[in-house]
Protein backbone atom coordinates (compact mmCIF):
# COMPACT_ATOMS: atom_id res chain seq x y z
CA UNK A 1 0.00 0.00 0.00
CA UNK A 2 1.16 3.52 -0.81
CA UNK A 3 2.16 5.78 2.03
CA UNK A 4 0.08 8.85 2.80
CA UNK A 5 2.89 11.03 1.53
CA UNK A 6 2.97 9.17 -1.78
CA UNK A 7 -0.78 9.57 -2.23
CA UNK A 8 -0.59 13.27 -1.39
CA UNK A 9 2.22 13.81 -3.89
CA UNK A 10 0.19 11.96 -6.50
CA UNK A 11 -2.81 14.25 -5.92
CA UNK A 12 -0.65 17.37 -6.11
CA UNK A 13 0.81 16.14 -9.38
CA UNK A 14 -2.66 15.59 -10.83
CA UNK A 15 -3.71 19.10 -9.84
CA UNK A 16 -0.57 20.63 -11.30
CA UNK A 17 -2.03 19.83 -14.71
CA UNK A 18 -4.75 22.45 -14.38
CA UNK A 19 -4.11 26.03 -15.41
CA UNK A 20 -7.74 26.95 -15.19
CA UNK A 21 -9.56 27.01 -11.86
CA UNK A 22 -12.77 25.84 -13.48
CA UNK A 23 -11.04 22.77 -14.90
CA UNK A 24 -9.79 22.01 -11.42
CA UNK A 25 -13.29 22.19 -10.04
CA UNK A 26 -14.65 20.09 -12.87
CA UNK A 27 -12.17 17.40 -11.80
CA UNK A 28 -13.18 17.76 -8.14
CA UNK A 29 -16.86 17.42 -9.04
CA UNK A 30 -16.01 14.35 -11.09
CA UNK A 31 -14.15 12.78 -8.17
CA UNK A 32 -17.22 13.31 -6.04
CA UNK A 33 -19.45 11.63 -8.59
CA UNK A 34 -17.16 8.58 -8.56
CA UNK A 35 -17.17 8.28 -4.77
CA UNK A 36 -18.77 4.93 -3.81
CA UNK A 37 -22.29 5.55 -2.52
CA UNK A 38 -22.80 5.59 1.23
CA UNK A 39 -25.22 2.98 2.53
CA UNK A 40 -28.57 4.72 3.15
CA UNK A 41 -28.62 3.44 6.74
CA UNK A 42 -25.75 5.80 7.51
CA UNK A 43 -27.51 8.84 6.07
CA UNK A 44 -29.17 9.67 9.36
CA UNK A 45 -28.70 12.40 11.92
CA UNK A 46 -26.37 10.13 13.94
CA UNK A 47 -23.82 10.26 11.14
CA UNK A 48 -24.50 13.82 10.03
CA UNK A 49 -21.85 16.50 10.20
CA UNK A 50 -23.82 19.64 9.64
CA UNK A 51 -22.40 22.71 7.97
CA UNK A 52 -24.31 25.94 7.58
CA UNK A 53 -25.04 25.14 3.94
CA UNK A 54 -23.94 21.65 3.03
CA UNK A 55 -24.42 18.37 4.83
CA UNK A 56 -21.86 15.61 5.20
CA UNK A 57 -22.51 12.10 6.47
CA UNK A 58 -19.54 10.19 7.84
CA UNK A 59 -19.30 6.53 8.77
CA UNK A 60 -16.04 5.07 10.05
CA UNK A 61 -14.93 1.59 11.03
CA UNK A 62 -11.75 -0.13 12.11
CA UNK A 63 -10.37 -3.28 10.51
CA UNK A 64 -7.07 -4.93 11.42
CA UNK A 65 -5.55 -1.78 12.82
CA UNK A 66 -6.66 0.50 10.00
CA UNK A 67 -9.47 3.04 9.94
CA UNK A 68 -11.83 3.19 6.98
CA UNK A 69 -14.16 6.09 6.16
CA UNK A 70 -17.30 6.17 4.06
CA UNK A 71 -19.02 9.47 3.41
CA UNK A 72 -21.49 11.38 1.33
CA UNK A 73 -22.54 15.00 0.93
CA UNK A 74 -25.48 16.83 -0.57
CA UNK A 75 -23.21 19.25 -2.42
CA UNK A 76 -21.02 18.26 -5.34
CA UNK A 77 -17.89 20.22 -4.52
CA UNK A 78 -17.81 19.23 -0.87
CA UNK A 79 -18.24 15.63 -2.00
CA UNK A 80 -15.30 15.93 -4.38
CA UNK A 81 -13.05 17.33 -1.68
CA UNK A 82 -14.18 14.52 0.58
CA UNK A 83 -13.13 12.04 -2.10
CA UNK A 84 -9.64 13.53 -1.95
CA UNK A 85 -9.54 13.37 1.83
CA UNK A 86 -10.65 9.75 1.78
CA UNK A 87 -8.04 8.85 -0.77
CA UNK A 88 -5.40 10.05 1.67
CA UNK A 89 -6.89 9.13 5.04
CA UNK A 90 -9.09 6.08 4.57
CA UNK A 91 -7.38 2.75 5.24
CA UNK A 92 -4.54 4.34 7.20
CA UNK A 93 -3.34 3.61 10.71
CA UNK A 94 -4.95 5.73 13.46
CA UNK A 95 -1.70 7.39 14.52
CA UNK A 96 -0.87 8.31 10.92
CA UNK A 97 -4.33 9.88 10.48
CA UNK A 98 -3.83 11.89 13.65
CA UNK A 99 -0.39 13.08 12.56
CA UNK A 100 -1.45 14.12 9.07
CA UNK A 101 -1.80 17.87 8.71
CA UNK A 102 -3.42 17.65 5.27
CA UNK A 103 -0.75 19.83 3.74
CA UNK A 104 -1.73 18.66 0.28
CA UNK A 105 -4.88 20.73 0.64
CA UNK A 106 -2.68 23.82 0.79
CA UNK A 107 -0.59 22.58 -2.10
CA UNK A 108 -3.64 22.24 -4.34
CA UNK A 109 -5.04 25.52 -3.03
CA UNK A 110 -8.23 24.26 -1.48
CA UNK A 111 -7.55 25.43 2.05
CA UNK A 112 -10.25 28.07 1.76
CA UNK A 113 -12.81 25.27 1.70
CA UNK A 114 -11.56 23.97 5.02
CA UNK A 115 -11.31 27.32 6.70
CA UNK A 116 -14.83 28.50 5.87
CA UNK A 117 -15.76 27.02 9.23
CA UNK A 118 -19.48 27.01 9.20
CA UNK A 119 -20.47 26.82 5.61
CA UNK A 120 -19.60 23.39 4.28
CA UNK A 121 -19.02 21.06 7.20
CA UNK A 122 -15.59 19.96 5.99
CA UNK A 123 -13.72 21.28 9.02
CA UNK A 124 -16.14 19.53 11.34
CA UNK A 125 -15.83 16.36 9.28
CA UNK A 126 -12.04 16.32 9.56
CA UNK A 127 -12.33 16.87 13.29
CA UNK A 128 -14.64 13.89 13.51
CA UNK A 129 -12.33 11.73 11.37
CA UNK A 130 -9.49 12.55 13.74
CA UNK A 131 -11.71 11.79 16.71
CA UNK A 132 -12.42 8.33 15.32
CA UNK A 133 -8.71 7.81 14.76
CA UNK A 134 -7.84 8.88 18.29
CA UNK A 135 -10.38 6.39 19.64
CA UNK A 136 -8.36 3.58 18.07
CA UNK A 137 -4.87 5.02 18.44
Amino acid at each position, binding site marked *: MKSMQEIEDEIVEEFDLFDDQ*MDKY*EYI*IDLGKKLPPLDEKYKTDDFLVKGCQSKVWLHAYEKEGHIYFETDSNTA*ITKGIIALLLRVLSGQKPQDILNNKLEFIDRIQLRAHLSSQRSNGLTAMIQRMKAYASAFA
Partner: protein
Amino acid sequence: MKPETATTALDVNKIREQFPILHQQVNGKPLVYLDNAATSQKPLAVINTIKDYYERYNSNIHRGAHHLAQLATEAYENARLTVAKHISAKTEREINFVRGTTEAINLVASTYGRKFITSGDEIIITAMEHHSNIVPWQMLCEEKGATLKVIPINDKGEIIFEEYLKLLNDKTKIVSIAYVSNALGTIHPVKEVITEAHKVGAVVFVDGAQAMPHMQVDVQELDCDFLGFSGHKVFAGTGIGILYGKESLLKAMPPYMGGGEMIKSVSFAGTTYNDLPYKFEAGTPHIEGGISLGAALTYIQAVGLDKIAAHEHALLQYGTEKLSAIDGLRLVGTAQNKSSVISFLVDNVHSYDLGVLLNQQGIAIRTGHHCCQPLMDRFKIEGTCRASFAFYNTFEEIDILEAALKRAISMLA
Protein backbone atom coordinates in the same frame (compact mmCIF):
# COMPACT_ATOMS: atom_id res chain seq x y z
CA MET B 1 -34.59 45.77 -22.20
CA LYS B 2 -31.23 45.72 -23.98
CA PRO B 3 -28.35 47.37 -22.17
CA GLU B 4 -27.79 49.82 -25.02
CA THR B 5 -31.36 51.03 -24.98
CA ALA B 6 -31.84 51.06 -21.23
CA THR B 7 -33.07 54.42 -20.12
CA THR B 8 -30.75 55.40 -17.39
CA ALA B 9 -29.50 58.83 -16.64
CA LEU B 10 -26.72 57.37 -14.57
CA ASP B 11 -23.15 57.42 -15.87
CA VAL B 12 -22.23 54.10 -14.30
CA ASN B 13 -18.63 54.07 -15.52
CA LYS B 14 -18.03 57.39 -13.87
CA ILE B 15 -19.65 56.17 -10.69
CA ARG B 16 -17.51 53.02 -10.67
CA GLU B 17 -14.41 55.22 -10.62
CA GLN B 18 -15.53 56.29 -7.17
CA PHE B 19 -15.41 52.70 -5.88
CA PRO B 20 -11.76 51.55 -5.85
CA ILE B 21 -12.57 48.04 -4.62
CA LEU B 22 -14.49 47.20 -7.79
CA HIS B 23 -11.35 47.44 -9.92
CA GLN B 24 -9.64 44.18 -9.12
CA GLN B 25 -9.31 40.63 -10.34
CA VAL B 26 -10.66 37.69 -8.38
CA ASN B 27 -9.40 34.27 -9.40
CA GLY B 28 -7.99 35.82 -12.53
CA LYS B 29 -11.29 37.42 -13.56
CA PRO B 30 -12.61 40.95 -13.10
CA LEU B 31 -14.56 41.15 -9.86
CA VAL B 32 -18.33 41.17 -10.34
CA TYR B 33 -19.75 42.16 -6.97
CA LEU B 34 -23.39 41.10 -6.66
CA ASP B 35 -23.65 40.70 -2.91
CA ASN B 36 -24.82 44.21 -2.15
CA ALA B 37 -27.67 43.09 0.09
CA ALA B 38 -25.05 41.64 2.43
CA THR B 39 -22.94 44.75 2.38
CA SER B 40 -22.29 47.60 -0.02
CA GLN B 41 -18.94 48.87 -1.26
CA LYS B 42 -17.65 52.29 -0.26
CA PRO B 43 -17.12 55.33 -2.47
CA LEU B 44 -14.01 57.50 -2.16
CA ALA B 45 -16.17 60.13 -0.48
CA VAL B 46 -16.62 57.73 2.44
CA ILE B 47 -13.11 56.25 2.44
CA ASN B 48 -11.53 59.70 2.41
CA THR B 49 -13.82 60.94 5.15
CA ILE B 50 -12.65 58.14 7.45
CA LYS B 51 -9.01 58.73 6.51
CA ASP B 52 -9.40 62.46 7.05
CA TYR B 53 -10.91 61.91 10.46
CA TYR B 54 -7.91 59.92 11.67
CA GLU B 55 -5.32 62.07 9.96
CA ARG B 56 -6.69 65.43 11.01
CA TYR B 57 -9.11 65.52 13.92
CA ASN B 58 -9.48 62.18 15.74
CA SER B 59 -10.69 63.06 19.21
CA ASN B 60 -13.33 62.10 21.73
CA ILE B 61 -16.55 64.00 21.27
CA HIS B 62 -18.87 66.00 23.54
CA ARG B 63 -16.19 66.27 26.21
CA GLY B 64 -13.00 68.18 25.66
CA ALA B 65 -13.07 71.86 24.91
CA HIS B 66 -9.92 71.59 22.82
CA HIS B 67 -9.72 72.18 19.11
CA LEU B 68 -9.74 68.58 17.88
CA ALA B 69 -12.63 67.65 20.17
CA GLN B 70 -14.61 70.55 18.77
CA LEU B 71 -13.94 69.48 15.19
CA ALA B 72 -14.86 65.86 15.88
CA THR B 73 -18.01 66.83 17.78
CA GLU B 74 -19.08 69.15 15.02
CA ALA B 75 -18.51 66.52 12.31
CA TYR B 76 -20.39 63.86 14.28
CA GLU B 77 -23.34 66.14 15.01
CA ASN B 78 -23.41 67.33 11.41
CA ALA B 79 -23.69 63.70 10.35
CA ARG B 80 -26.67 63.37 12.67
CA LEU B 81 -28.27 66.39 11.01
CA THR B 82 -27.59 64.88 7.58
CA VAL B 83 -29.32 61.66 8.62
CA ALA B 84 -32.27 63.58 10.08
CA LYS B 85 -32.67 65.54 6.88
CA HIS B 86 -32.19 62.48 4.67
CA ILE B 87 -35.08 60.56 6.24
CA SER B 88 -37.15 63.71 6.93
CA ALA B 89 -37.11 63.40 10.71
CA LYS B 90 -38.69 66.35 12.53
CA THR B 91 -35.60 66.93 14.64
CA GLU B 92 -32.12 65.50 15.12
CA ARG B 93 -33.20 64.47 18.61
CA GLU B 94 -35.03 61.62 16.90
CA ILE B 95 -31.78 60.27 15.41
CA ASN B 96 -29.87 57.85 17.60
CA PHE B 97 -26.57 56.38 16.52
CA VAL B 98 -26.47 52.63 17.12
CA ARG B 99 -24.31 49.78 15.80
CA GLY B 100 -26.75 48.72 13.12
CA THR B 101 -30.30 47.56 12.42
CA THR B 102 -29.92 44.62 14.78
CA GLU B 103 -29.08 46.92 17.67
CA ALA B 104 -31.88 49.29 16.72
CA ILE B 105 -34.43 46.47 16.98
CA ASN B 106 -32.96 45.14 20.20
CA LEU B 107 -32.95 48.63 21.68
CA VAL B 108 -36.65 49.12 21.00
CA ALA B 109 -37.54 45.60 22.19
CA SER B 110 -35.50 46.08 25.36
CA THR B 111 -36.66 49.55 26.31
CA TYR B 112 -40.01 50.33 24.72
CA GLY B 113 -40.89 46.64 24.87
CA ARG B 114 -39.85 46.12 28.45
CA LYS B 115 -41.77 49.18 29.64
CA PHE B 116 -44.95 48.94 27.62
CA ILE B 117 -45.53 45.27 26.78
CA THR B 118 -47.42 43.17 29.27
CA SER B 119 -48.82 39.66 29.49
CA GLY B 120 -51.43 38.95 26.82
CA ASP B 121 -50.18 41.64 24.43
CA GLU B 122 -49.46 40.78 20.81
CA ILE B 123 -46.57 41.67 18.53
CA ILE B 124 -46.86 41.20 14.77
CA ILE B 125 -44.05 40.46 12.30
CA THR B 126 -44.09 38.90 8.82
CA ALA B 127 -43.07 35.43 7.67
CA MET B 128 -40.15 36.84 5.73
CA GLU B 129 -38.28 38.74 8.40
CA HIS B 130 -34.55 38.52 8.99
CA HIS B 131 -33.66 36.64 12.18
CA SER B 132 -32.77 40.01 13.72
CA ASN B 133 -36.41 41.09 13.37
CA ILE B 134 -37.69 37.84 14.85
CA VAL B 135 -35.49 36.85 17.77
CA PRO B 136 -35.58 40.13 19.80
CA TRP B 137 -39.40 40.02 19.71
CA GLN B 138 -39.43 36.33 20.64
CA MET B 139 -37.21 37.13 23.62
CA LEU B 140 -39.51 39.99 24.63
CA CYS B 141 -42.63 37.84 24.27
CA GLU B 142 -41.08 35.09 26.34
CA GLU B 143 -40.15 37.50 29.10
CA LYS B 144 -43.52 39.26 29.18
CA GLY B 145 -45.91 36.44 28.35
CA ALA B 146 -46.88 38.20 25.13
CA THR B 147 -47.60 36.48 21.82
CA LEU B 148 -45.77 36.80 18.52
CA LYS B 149 -48.10 36.74 15.49
CA VAL B 150 -46.86 36.22 11.96
CA ILE B 151 -48.35 37.67 8.78
CA PRO B 152 -48.34 34.87 6.20
CA ILE B 153 -47.04 35.37 2.67
CA ASN B 154 -48.13 34.10 -0.72
CA ASP B 155 -46.09 32.05 -3.20
CA LYS B 156 -44.76 35.18 -4.86
CA GLY B 157 -43.27 36.34 -1.59
CA GLU B 158 -45.78 39.08 -0.75
CA ILE B 159 -47.53 39.53 2.57
CA ILE B 160 -51.22 38.63 2.49
CA PHE B 161 -52.76 41.91 3.57
CA GLU B 162 -56.19 40.51 4.47
CA GLU B 163 -54.48 38.10 6.86
CA TYR B 164 -52.64 41.01 8.42
CA LEU B 165 -55.91 42.82 9.00
CA LYS B 166 -57.28 39.72 10.72
CA LEU B 167 -54.30 39.65 13.10
CA LEU B 168 -54.79 43.24 14.22
CA ASN B 169 -56.81 43.86 17.38
CA ASP B 170 -56.69 45.91 20.55
CA LYS B 171 -54.08 43.54 22.01
CA THR B 172 -51.66 44.40 19.18
CA LYS B 173 -48.97 46.64 20.64
CA ILE B 174 -46.09 46.49 18.16
CA VAL B 175 -45.88 45.69 14.43
CA SER B 176 -42.34 45.19 13.14
CA ILE B 177 -41.76 44.78 9.44
CA ALA B 178 -38.94 45.04 6.93
CA TYR B 179 -39.45 47.73 4.30
CA VAL B 180 -37.67 45.46 1.79
CA SER B 181 -37.01 41.73 2.22
CA ASN B 182 -33.30 40.91 2.26
CA ALA B 183 -33.81 37.40 0.92
CA LEU B 184 -36.31 38.03 -1.87
CA GLY B 185 -36.28 41.79 -2.45
CA THR B 186 -40.03 42.21 -1.91
CA ILE B 187 -40.97 45.81 -1.14
CA HIS B 188 -43.72 45.61 1.45
CA PRO B 189 -46.62 48.08 1.53
CA VAL B 190 -45.33 49.54 4.80
CA LYS B 191 -47.36 52.74 4.61
CA GLU B 192 -50.61 50.75 4.51
CA VAL B 193 -49.30 48.41 7.22
CA ILE B 194 -48.57 51.44 9.42
CA THR B 195 -51.95 53.08 8.80
CA GLU B 196 -53.79 49.92 9.83
CA ALA B 197 -51.57 49.35 12.88
CA HIS B 198 -52.21 52.89 14.10
CA LYS B 199 -55.96 52.30 13.92
CA VAL B 200 -55.62 49.78 16.76
CA GLY B 201 -53.11 51.91 18.64
CA ALA B 202 -50.01 49.81 17.87
CA VAL B 203 -46.60 51.30 17.17
CA VAL B 204 -44.67 50.23 14.07
CA PHE B 205 -40.96 49.49 13.73
CA VAL B 206 -39.73 49.58 10.14
CA ASP B 207 -36.53 47.65 9.38
CA GLY B 208 -35.12 49.89 6.70
CA ALA B 209 -31.80 48.06 6.20
CA GLN B 210 -32.55 46.92 2.65
CA ALA B 211 -34.56 49.98 1.66
CA MET B 212 -32.09 52.77 2.41
CA PRO B 213 -29.60 51.99 -0.38
CA HIS B 214 -32.33 51.91 -2.99
CA MET B 215 -35.01 54.47 -2.27
CA GLN B 216 -35.90 57.67 -0.50
CA VAL B 217 -37.31 56.83 2.91
CA ASP B 218 -39.43 59.56 4.50
CA VAL B 219 -40.38 58.81 8.10
CA GLN B 220 -43.01 61.54 8.27
CA GLU B 221 -44.68 60.45 5.08
CA LEU B 222 -44.68 56.83 6.26
CA ASP B 223 -45.63 57.94 9.78
CA CYS B 224 -43.58 55.06 11.17
CA ASP B 225 -42.86 55.16 14.88
CA PHE B 226 -39.40 53.66 14.61
CA LEU B 227 -37.00 53.05 11.75
CA GLY B 228 -33.73 51.16 11.95
CA PHE B 229 -31.00 50.86 9.36
CA SER B 230 -27.34 49.93 8.97
CA GLY B 231 -24.64 52.23 7.65
CA HIS B 232 -22.65 49.52 5.90
CA LYS B 233 -25.55 48.63 3.62
CA VAL B 234 -25.91 52.21 2.51
CA PHE B 235 -22.26 52.74 1.45
CA ALA B 236 -20.92 53.83 4.86
CA GLY B 237 -18.57 51.96 7.19
CA THR B 238 -19.49 48.93 9.29
CA GLY B 239 -20.56 49.06 12.92
CA ILE B 240 -22.74 52.13 12.63
CA GLY B 241 -26.46 52.41 12.17
CA ILE B 242 -29.46 54.51 13.05
CA LEU B 243 -32.48 54.17 15.23
CA TYR B 244 -35.05 56.79 14.36
CA GLY B 245 -37.91 57.14 16.81
CA LYS B 246 -40.66 59.68 17.25
CA GLU B 247 -39.51 62.07 19.94
CA SER B 248 -42.47 61.44 22.25
CA LEU B 249 -41.81 57.69 22.17
CA LEU B 250 -38.07 58.01 22.71
CA LYS B 251 -38.74 60.33 25.66
CA ALA B 252 -41.06 57.79 27.25
CA MET B 253 -38.57 54.95 26.87
CA PRO B 254 -36.08 54.06 29.61
CA PRO B 255 -32.37 54.12 28.63
CA TYR B 256 -30.81 51.09 26.96
CA MET B 257 -27.29 50.96 28.33
CA GLY B 258 -25.89 52.89 31.25
CA GLY B 259 -22.57 54.66 31.16
CA GLY B 260 -20.91 57.89 30.13
CA GLU B 261 -22.54 60.24 27.65
CA MET B 262 -26.09 59.13 28.50
CA ILE B 263 -26.10 60.83 31.90
CA LYS B 264 -26.64 64.36 33.12
CA SER B 265 -25.34 63.83 36.61
CA VAL B 266 -24.30 60.79 38.59
CA SER B 267 -24.19 60.35 42.34
CA PHE B 268 -24.53 57.27 44.51
CA ALA B 269 -27.93 58.54 45.53
CA GLY B 270 -29.11 58.39 41.92
CA THR B 271 -28.49 59.41 38.35
CA THR B 272 -30.33 61.69 35.98
CA TYR B 273 -30.27 60.76 32.33
CA ASN B 274 -29.20 62.93 29.46
CA ASP B 275 -31.60 64.42 26.95
CA LEU B 276 -32.30 62.96 23.53
CA PRO B 277 -30.52 61.76 21.52
CA TYR B 278 -27.67 61.16 23.98
CA LYS B 279 -29.87 59.15 26.35
CA PHE B 280 -29.39 56.07 24.16
CA GLU B 281 -25.74 56.64 23.34
CA ALA B 282 -23.77 55.41 26.31
CA GLY B 283 -20.01 55.27 25.96
CA THR B 284 -17.68 56.72 23.35
CA PRO B 285 -19.54 56.19 20.09
CA HIS B 286 -18.31 54.94 16.71
CA ILE B 287 -17.27 58.46 15.77
CA GLU B 288 -15.74 57.91 12.34
CA GLY B 289 -18.57 55.49 11.56
CA GLY B 290 -21.16 58.16 12.21
CA ILE B 291 -19.25 60.72 10.17
CA SER B 292 -18.87 58.19 7.34
CA LEU B 293 -22.62 57.61 7.36
CA GLY B 294 -23.20 61.32 6.88
CA ALA B 295 -20.73 61.29 3.98
CA ALA B 296 -22.41 58.25 2.41
CA LEU B 297 -25.89 59.80 2.54
CA THR B 298 -24.57 63.08 1.15
CA TYR B 299 -22.94 61.09 -1.65
CA ILE B 300 -26.10 59.20 -2.68
CA GLN B 301 -28.13 62.39 -2.50
CA ALA B 302 -25.66 63.95 -4.93
CA VAL B 303 -25.95 60.94 -7.26
CA GLY B 304 -29.72 61.11 -6.91
CA LEU B 305 -31.87 58.40 -5.38
CA ASP B 306 -34.37 58.65 -8.24
CA LYS B 307 -31.60 57.92 -10.75
CA ILE B 308 -30.30 55.12 -8.56
CA ALA B 309 -33.78 53.59 -8.36
CA ALA B 310 -34.30 53.84 -12.13
CA HIS B 311 -30.96 52.20 -12.94
CA GLU B 312 -31.47 49.43 -10.41
CA HIS B 313 -34.95 48.78 -11.70
CA ALA B 314 -33.54 48.38 -15.22
CA LEU B 315 -30.86 46.01 -13.85
CA LEU B 316 -33.54 44.00 -12.06
CA GLN B 317 -35.67 43.69 -15.20
CA TYR B 318 -32.71 42.79 -17.39
CA GLY B 319 -31.35 40.30 -14.87
CA THR B 320 -34.75 38.70 -14.28
CA GLU B 321 -35.24 38.28 -18.00
CA LYS B 322 -31.76 36.81 -18.56
CA LEU B 323 -31.71 34.50 -15.57
CA SER B 324 -35.24 33.16 -15.87
CA ALA B 325 -34.43 32.07 -19.44
CA ILE B 326 -31.75 29.67 -18.11
CA ASP B 327 -32.85 26.06 -18.28
CA GLY B 328 -33.85 24.66 -14.89
CA LEU B 329 -33.52 27.99 -13.11
CA ARG B 330 -36.38 28.99 -10.85
CA LEU B 331 -36.86 32.42 -9.31
CA VAL B 332 -37.76 32.51 -5.63
CA GLY B 333 -39.71 35.67 -4.90
CA THR B 334 -41.59 37.18 -7.79
CA ALA B 335 -43.39 40.00 -6.02
CA GLN B 336 -44.96 42.76 -8.07
CA ASN B 337 -42.97 45.35 -6.21
CA LYS B 338 -39.32 44.39 -5.85
CA SER B 339 -35.97 45.98 -5.17
CA SER B 340 -32.88 44.86 -7.09
CA VAL B 341 -32.58 41.35 -5.66
CA ILE B 342 -32.83 38.12 -7.63
CA SER B 343 -33.10 34.98 -5.52
CA PHE B 344 -33.04 31.72 -7.43
CA LEU B 345 -32.52 27.98 -7.42
CA VAL B 346 -31.43 25.59 -10.14
CA ASP B 347 -32.95 22.11 -10.42
CA ASN B 348 -30.73 19.36 -9.00
CA VAL B 349 -27.97 21.82 -8.19
CA HIS B 350 -27.06 22.86 -4.65
CA SER B 351 -26.76 26.63 -4.18
CA TYR B 352 -23.44 26.20 -2.34
CA ASP B 353 -21.87 24.58 -5.41
CA LEU B 354 -23.11 27.39 -7.62
CA GLY B 355 -21.69 29.96 -5.22
CA VAL B 356 -18.27 28.28 -5.27
CA LEU B 357 -18.17 28.03 -9.06
CA LEU B 358 -19.31 31.62 -9.55
CA ASN B 359 -16.58 32.74 -7.15
CA GLN B 360 -14.05 30.89 -9.27
CA GLN B 361 -15.25 33.07 -12.13
CA GLY B 362 -14.84 36.27 -10.14
CA ILE B 363 -18.50 36.68 -9.18
CA ALA B 364 -19.62 37.35 -5.63
CA ILE B 365 -23.17 36.30 -4.78
CA ARG B 366 -24.66 35.04 -1.54
CA THR B 367 -25.90 31.50 -1.04
CA GLY B 368 -27.74 29.99 1.90
CA HIS B 369 -30.74 30.87 4.00
CA HIS B 370 -29.91 34.61 4.26
CA CYS B 371 -30.71 34.56 8.00
CA CYS B 372 -34.35 33.87 7.09
CA GLN B 373 -34.86 30.24 8.08
CA PRO B 374 -38.62 30.59 8.67
CA LEU B 375 -38.96 32.05 5.16
CA MET B 376 -36.97 29.16 3.68
CA ASP B 377 -39.24 26.74 5.59
CA ARG B 378 -42.25 28.50 4.06
CA PHE B 379 -40.92 27.72 0.58
CA LYS B 380 -39.73 24.27 1.71
CA ILE B 381 -36.17 25.01 0.60
CA GLU B 382 -32.86 25.08 2.43
CA GLY B 383 -31.61 28.26 0.84
CA THR B 384 -31.24 30.17 -2.39
CA CYS B 385 -28.62 31.86 -4.53
CA ARG B 386 -29.03 35.61 -4.28
CA ALA B 387 -27.68 38.18 -6.69
CA SER B 388 -28.28 41.69 -5.34
CA PHE B 389 -27.46 44.79 -7.35
CA ALA B 390 -26.31 48.26 -6.43
CA PHE B 391 -26.28 51.33 -8.63
CA TYR B 392 -22.63 50.71 -9.57
CA ASN B 393 -23.50 47.38 -11.19
CA THR B 394 -23.76 47.14 -14.96
CA PHE B 395 -25.72 45.26 -17.59
CA GLU B 396 -22.43 43.70 -18.73
CA GLU B 397 -22.00 42.23 -15.27
CA ILE B 398 -25.38 40.56 -15.61
CA ASP B 399 -24.23 39.09 -18.93
CA ILE B 400 -21.11 37.77 -17.16
CA LEU B 401 -23.30 36.29 -14.41
CA GLU B 402 -25.53 34.62 -16.99
CA ALA B 403 -22.59 33.05 -18.83
CA ALA B 404 -20.88 31.97 -15.60
CA LEU B 405 -24.11 30.42 -14.32
CA LYS B 406 -24.57 28.45 -17.52
CA ARG B 407 -21.02 27.14 -17.29
CA ALA B 408 -21.42 26.19 -13.63
CA ILE B 409 -24.74 24.46 -14.27
CA SER B 410 -23.28 22.44 -17.14
CA MET B 411 -20.57 21.20 -14.77
CA LEU B 412 -22.94 20.32 -11.95
CA ALA B 413 -26.00 18.93 -13.66
